[in-house]
């Protein structure tokens, strides 16, 4: 094996983060576009153009999410088993929303009936909005810790009060993620279309960027990072060994999520970068440089995601009722052998995936004009 266990654990923390990030960077645009479908597209032909703008690429983009979840299963079985059952209720809703999107995109234009199309437009919008909200809820709840512990046979036991998941910090997270996906959607529409659609999407883009600045500012204004309860490992971790998550000690304290930022001050660049890039989005939208706006948005998503990961590191799933049982990247992972096998697969296939995805985007490049070829239902 070319990597020792400790290095592999770190690599997989990065890779799983990267897989989810790739979903946000690609699928986020698609979710945003379908969420905005009935709002930005007013006429039937316009809505068809919007769907065609993501039509050839959304399916591949969604696989980043599928692969990220599968990678959690394979590389962090503890986290997969625990998170998905603890969050049973909200993940069920996520699943139902995700199920609606593929038939929605495919079936919406299959009949000319007006009511049929309106119904699907509504459903599609829901299938874009709901996943965004749930991703945000999950991020917000994980940050505060989830109510679980392990029994003597290492079975995850958890409280089932789902109402608790709708708390203010989690709702803020939901609002942030929705806001960002909608930003991505409107930027994509402004970039890919022309005339009325582009003009409308531009105003959405400017407005949403402003809202996002307000949200980010409020996090700083209310000093949330300092006030939020965080977690910190207090025992020594032998990273190179096969570890049981139950054999460590963890404390819960306000501001603990700041620890990494204090130890590595250069990490503080990340939230500021997000702030600056958001201004960049707004200014480039104002100047109608939509390609630039998309570039700046990618930077926003990347820097916000990395800020989140840097705060939590090395935690994956903190436990609020028994902090010692929290899962970290050191102890929630698969065996050395499995992590290495997975990495080989990633080394061989990820570049290939990126290459053919880039090729598909290249083939589909160019704006969708308001003419017959863009209105066509291609399947």
């Amino acid at each position, binding site marked *: 094996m070319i990597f020792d266990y400790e290095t592999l654990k770190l690599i997989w923390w990065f890779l799983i983060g990267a897989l989810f990030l790739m979903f946000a960077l690609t699928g986020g645009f698609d979710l945003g576009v379908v969420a905005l479908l009935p709002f930005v597209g007013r006429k039937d032909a316009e809505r068809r153009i919007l769907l065609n703008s993501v039509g*050839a690429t959304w399916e591949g983009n969604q696989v980043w999410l599928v692969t990220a979840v599968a990678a959690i299963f394979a590389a962090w079985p503890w986290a997969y088993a625990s998170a998905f059952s603890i969050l049973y209720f909200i*993940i069920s809703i996520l699943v139902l929303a995700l199920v609606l999107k593929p038939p929605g995109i495919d079936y919406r234009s299959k009949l000319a009936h007006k009511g049929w199309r309106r119904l699907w437009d509504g459903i599609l919008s829901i299938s874009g909005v709901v996943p965004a909200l749930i991703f945000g809820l999950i991020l917000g709840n994980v940050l505060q810790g989830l109510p679980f512990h392990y029994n003597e046979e290492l079975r995850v036991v958890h409280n089932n009060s789902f109402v608790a998941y709708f708390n203010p910090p989690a709702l803020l997270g939901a609002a942030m993620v929705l806001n960002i996906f909608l930003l991505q959607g409107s930027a994509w529409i402004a970039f890919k279309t022309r005339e009325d659609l582009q003009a409308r999407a531009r105003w959405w883009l400017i407005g949403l960027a402003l809202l996002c600045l307000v949200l980010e500012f409020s996090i700083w204004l209310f000093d949330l990072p300092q006030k939020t309860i965080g977690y910190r490992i207090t025992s020594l971790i032998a990273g190179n060994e096969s570890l049981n998550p139950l054999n460590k000690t963890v404390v819960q304290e306000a501001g603990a999520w700041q620890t990494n930022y204090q130890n590595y001050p250069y990490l503080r660049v990340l939230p500021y970068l997000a702030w600056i890039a958001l201004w960049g989005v707004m200014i480039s939208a104002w100047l109608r440089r939509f390609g630039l706006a998309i570039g700046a948005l990618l930077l926003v998503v990347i820097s916000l995601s990395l800020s989140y990961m840097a705060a939590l590191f090395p935690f994956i799933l903190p436990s609020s009722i028994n902090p010692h049982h929290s899962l970290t990247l050191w102890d929630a992972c698969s065996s050395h052998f499995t992590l290495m096998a997975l990495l080989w697969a990633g080394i061989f296939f990820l570049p290939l995936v990126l290459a053919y995805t880039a090729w598909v985007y290249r083939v589909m490049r160019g704006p969708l004009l308001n003419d017959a070829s863009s209105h066509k239902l291609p399947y």
Partner: protein
Amino acid sequence: MVDGTLVNLSRLQFALTAMYHFLFVPLTLGLSFMMAIMESVYVLTGKKIYQHMTKFWGKLFAINFAMGVATGITLEFQFGMNWAYYSHYVGDVFGLPLALEGLIAFFLESTLIGLVFFGWERLTKVQHLTVTWLVALGSNLSGLWVLIANAWMQHPVGAEFNYELMRMELTSIKEVFFNPVAQVKFVHTMASGYVTGAMFVLGISSYYLLKGRDLAFARRSFAVASGFGLAAILSVLVLGDESGYNLGEVQKVKLAAIEGEWQTEAAPAAFTLFGIPNQAMERTDYALRIPYALGLIATRSFDKPVIGLKELKMQNEARIRKGITAYGYLQRLRAGENNQALKYAFNNSKAFLGYGLLVKRYTDQVVDASEDQIKAAATDTIPHIAPLFWSFRVMVGCGIIMLFIFVMAFYYNAKRNVEEQRWLLKLALYSMPLPWIAIEAGWIVAECGRQPWAIAEILPTFLGTSTNTVAQVFTSLIGLALLYTALLVVELWLMFKYARRGPSSLNLGLYHFETHSSGSLPKL
């Protein structure tokens, strides 16, 4: 102790979502290949009609594909949602093929599918053809990885139990990938997907031939379907026989259950063609039997016996006793006792640990299990026979009818007088549900036959669940059932609508409803 209702609801939800998913997957597998074949003919001969065929069957493919993708997402989330302990216990091994499925296959299929539809004007002929072939390849590779994962549940190889973390860990990738069960399963399942695609095209083409419209289009589609279908159904049947042999080697209980063979018979055993399995009395009533047939299929010999269920149950009872001992050692190890003799003893008995876990259905004090509890656990090692027995016969019956249809279709197609064989066209049309019935029945055989195990001889199904409440799972089950059923109705409705309309739905101005003003145009 385990909440039986929770286990049953979790199983029901998994069965529901998996069976719905598998209404769509086989058609994707088969139709993607047939589209690739049609497009190859187009590129090689330059005949436009083959491009129209690719596009039209592609339209129906898309209606189906959307549902396949949608229902697949649920399955991936469900292991963690409803089977948390399962995911923990085997994630180190089982997660690997699923991750590879995403990375190697699902990406390829999903990224390129867009270009199949959006790429006709943006790609050269050869580029587009390549894309279509890669989509077919991707969907089939996808199946390969999922079946490797499933085969590992049926016949877990290449893994070792880690008592400190209470889980199975991967020891050999090669053994997992080249699992003999996986290989047989792969070819059998893929070929049944090809049969589904072929029956679909054959049936709908027959409809056009019966109606006497778009004849050139229908004849050619019929020709492709009959050839492809005949090859596919032959491989399904041959590989089905191979699975029988395979079961005789590794899944003896399943084989005996399918056959309703309670007593071990003198070799070679007879094959029970029909009968009424009677689980309570442990016999098959009114059995109609073919001498020697089962022994030949399952052992490929005249002298090796096929072991009956009663004897298998006795063997399992002995295994449960050993498993209880292993569980005792495990408890001492986990309590911190650490000596070589204990580890040695545990390592020697841990192969039976799973059998010891079976007792947990009746008591948490595994080592103190009573005789009655052990007997009850031994009875549990034999799955319900009737669903297996009947599903298997339904599957084989459908297969034989389809073999007949494809042989006839191939024959009359070669003689070039298919259109005169109206009985065959009608038979092909009304037999369209058969591949789906056969496939769902096949999965019932495979998965009910695996019971009581989630992972054969390692983890009992009832232990694999999450600590959800019954109310939670009930709610999600109802939600999924309603949504899936509504979507299925919509899907079928669109499918019928577009199939009836035929190639006229391509709006090329060349086909029946566009050229015959007398025909009433089905509105979209």
